[in-house]
Each structure stands twice: as C-alpha cells, then as structure tokens.
C-alpha cells in the first residue's frame, strides 16, 4: 500500500488547490499524466522529479535516482504497462 512511484512535474497547474494546503501539478509517469498534490512538497518546481503515492508527492528526488527506480519497476513488472500496479 505504501508503494510510491517517481514522476516528473510537467506543469504547476495552480498554486493553491481546493484544500488551501497545496498546489497541484501535472506529473508525467512514463507517458501517463496525472494531477498530483504538492501539499507535502511545496518546494517542488516544474521539471523536478517527485515520488508520488496515492495522488500526493512525498518528496523531491534527483533525476538519476528516479530513473533507476523506473528501471527496477519495469524489470519487476510493476510499471503501468504490466497491469499489476495497486491503487494505493
């Protein structure tokens, strides 16, 4: 349940989301793009890699680490194409 996946921020969509506690970013996960809340990572900027869990960025990662994680997720069949990823 606590699995998190790295993605890259394509665009900061709004500086404050409806909760008033975080901005919303569009994050790219190997071609899939979803909205991610940045309440826990207010320092995240466009182009940064973030580790995302259940629609929230847990922290900012460096690019090298993020790409290495993706290599492993692909190898383990946990990437989006495998159909095996859990909802949370």
């Amino acid at each position: 349940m606590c699995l998190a996946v790295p993605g890259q921020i394509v665009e900061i969509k709004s500086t404050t989301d409806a909760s008033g506690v975080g901005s919303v970013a569009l994050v790219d996960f190997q071609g899939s793009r979803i909205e991610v809340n940045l309440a826990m990572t207010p320092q995240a900027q466009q182009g940064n890699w973030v580790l995302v869990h259940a629609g929230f960025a847990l922290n900012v990662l460096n690019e090298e680490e993020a790409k290495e994680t993706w290599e492993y997720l692909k190898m383990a069949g946990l990437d989006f194409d495998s159909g095996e990823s859990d909802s949370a």
Partner: protein
Amino acid sequence: MQRERVQELIEQINQASSGAGRPIQLMEVCGTHTVNLFRSGVKSLLPAQIRLISGPGCPVCVTSQGYIDTACALATRSDVTICTYGDMVRVPGGNSSLEHRRSQGARVRVVYSARDAVAHAQANPDQKVVFLAVGFETTTPATAVAVKEAEAKKLDNFFVLSGHKLVIPAMATLLSAGEVVLDGFLCPGHVSIIIGAQAYEPIATEFHKPCVIAGFEPEQLFRGILHLVRQVNDGHSKVENVYSVAVTEPGNTQAQALIEDVFETTPVVWRAMGTIDRSGLQLKGKYQKYDALTHFKMEWGPDVEPPGCRCGDVIQGKLEPNKCGLFGNTCTPQYPIGPCMVSSEGTCAAWYKYGGYSHRVSDVTDPI
C-alpha cells in the same frame, strides 16, 4: 551495473553472516518490502543463517475485524457510498465483505486517492461519502489534506472512518511482548520519508535493536540486510539509513505538520494484537464533524478472527504462513479467509504467489 553491485553485496552478506556463528533473525515491517523480497528473489539468494520474517507492515492486514465489520455495516445504509483503496474490498469481515455488500447493491467505490473521495462527495451531494482511511504514515497526510479540502469546500457529506496507524508503537509492542526473537529491523522506505530516520531512535536505544531503513530495489534490500548483519556482528544497535536519497533524518516536516493539524493519537485495536496505546490516529475535535463513527453514532465491532485463521500470528512474525492449517487449502488468493491472503502485500499472499505454495499445505516444505 546494478547486477554487479548486487553480486558484490551478496558476497559481503555471505562473509558477514558466516562470521556471526549463529542464525540471524531480521524482521521487515513493510508490506511493500515483503512483496519485493520475494518478487525480486532477494530472499532466495540470502544465506541460510539469515532468516527474514514479516512483521505488522501490511496496513490492510493489521486492520481489525471490527473495522471491517463497521465499514460493512455502513455500506448497507442506503444513504452511504463507501470510497476505499482497492485492497480493502475483498477482506472478509465477521459475516460479510465490502465486495459481498456491493454484490447486494451497496455503493462501494475504489479510489486511487483520498481526494477522489472528496470529489465524489462534492459531485453527489445527496449521498454521504465515507472514506475508509487505512494505512500508515505514508498514506495519512493524504487523508489530512482530504479533510481540509472538505472543510474548504464546506462539504457536509464527506466522512472519514479512520483506521490510520503508526508503525513505531507496533514495533515496540512486539519487542515488549518478547515472543519473537529478533536481531534487527529492516525499516520501511516510504513510511520513513514521512517520519524520518530519527523516529526509530527509541527502538535502537531503548530496545537495543539495530534499525536500517532501505528502499525497495534489490540493491537497497541487500544493502539494508548487510548493514543489519554487520551491526549484529559488532554488537551495535543504531539507526542507519541506506535510502538517504529519499529519507532524511527529520523526515518530511510538511507532511508531519498536516498529520499533526488534523489527527491526534488514540489507543487502537490491531488485528489479534489487541489494543496498542497511542498507535492509532483519530480526527481532532475541530474536525470531528467529518468523523464517520461520530456522525453515524457507531462503535467499533469486536475483533474476532475467522475460525482457524492465523493471520494474527503471521503479522506478528510468530508463524510462517504455510504453518497455518488453512494456507493453500481453504485459504487462497481466490477464496481468502484472512486479510494476509487478500492484500497483494499480505505475507500469506506473497508466500502463495512467489513461494511456490500452490499445493496443499501438507505438500509444502519450509523454504527457509
């Protein structure tokens, strides 16, 4: 590249563990670690004297039967829609499951994020939306933001059934009980991003158990195990962090502030472990109108395990799954009896899927 580094780590682990002169028993307290230790083959590549056992790290598995029964009772109400993470849907309660309730017409929606539950409440003002908030510290801040969002949107039809739990009190309880002999903990990666490496200091200093935080890739898992074995050999008990690219000493203070703002600790029942003081999280008074138990005037049901089910012993590391009489016989991922076989991160499900235990339990041999 990683292959070479892993090979080197395995050799170092072999060397270090042969110097120990006795078996070393380590516990992982993270469902994602449990699955990855099997899936990536790490478990099978460790020397026989290193024994890895799974602890209470699967949030669905440690959720009490009483919580499931309360969720099922809420699901039967015609004015309620349940929003839940997918793993909870098939967990059997005392006499039903959310899946069963859904087949009888109950509204049970699987959501990816707590915020999806808020969006559903906003779009369906005629329904009372109850979000099943389970999970450890990784997941809790998301619920906190959802509650704050419901408040900002002035929603009066969004509620939280809080089953959130804290990892450290469960580790301390296991050690205090003293029923499982442990040499150290492989500590969860993503929980630690939130709580920080320093959160494990009491386990290292008061209980004198080494704690090593590791990520999920094979190299991380092997490195974490190597550091634990070296600490055991050297007689050390300190907190080490081999996942420093993601985990800091203080953790994510923004996330901690969100949890602190919305939740307060409370005694809570863990499956078969009983009530652990200050190990659960409930909404603070200022957010109580979003508390499902308060709104629907309900109490938790009793925590009674299904007959013959040993999930309670499995999540405490007292029993390996194939020693349960139901494992692989009447309890399979297709027809699960207990939560450890339901959740994809459950210890029983991982043993069944990756351990080659698709045969009757009597045919199964101990893999370790």
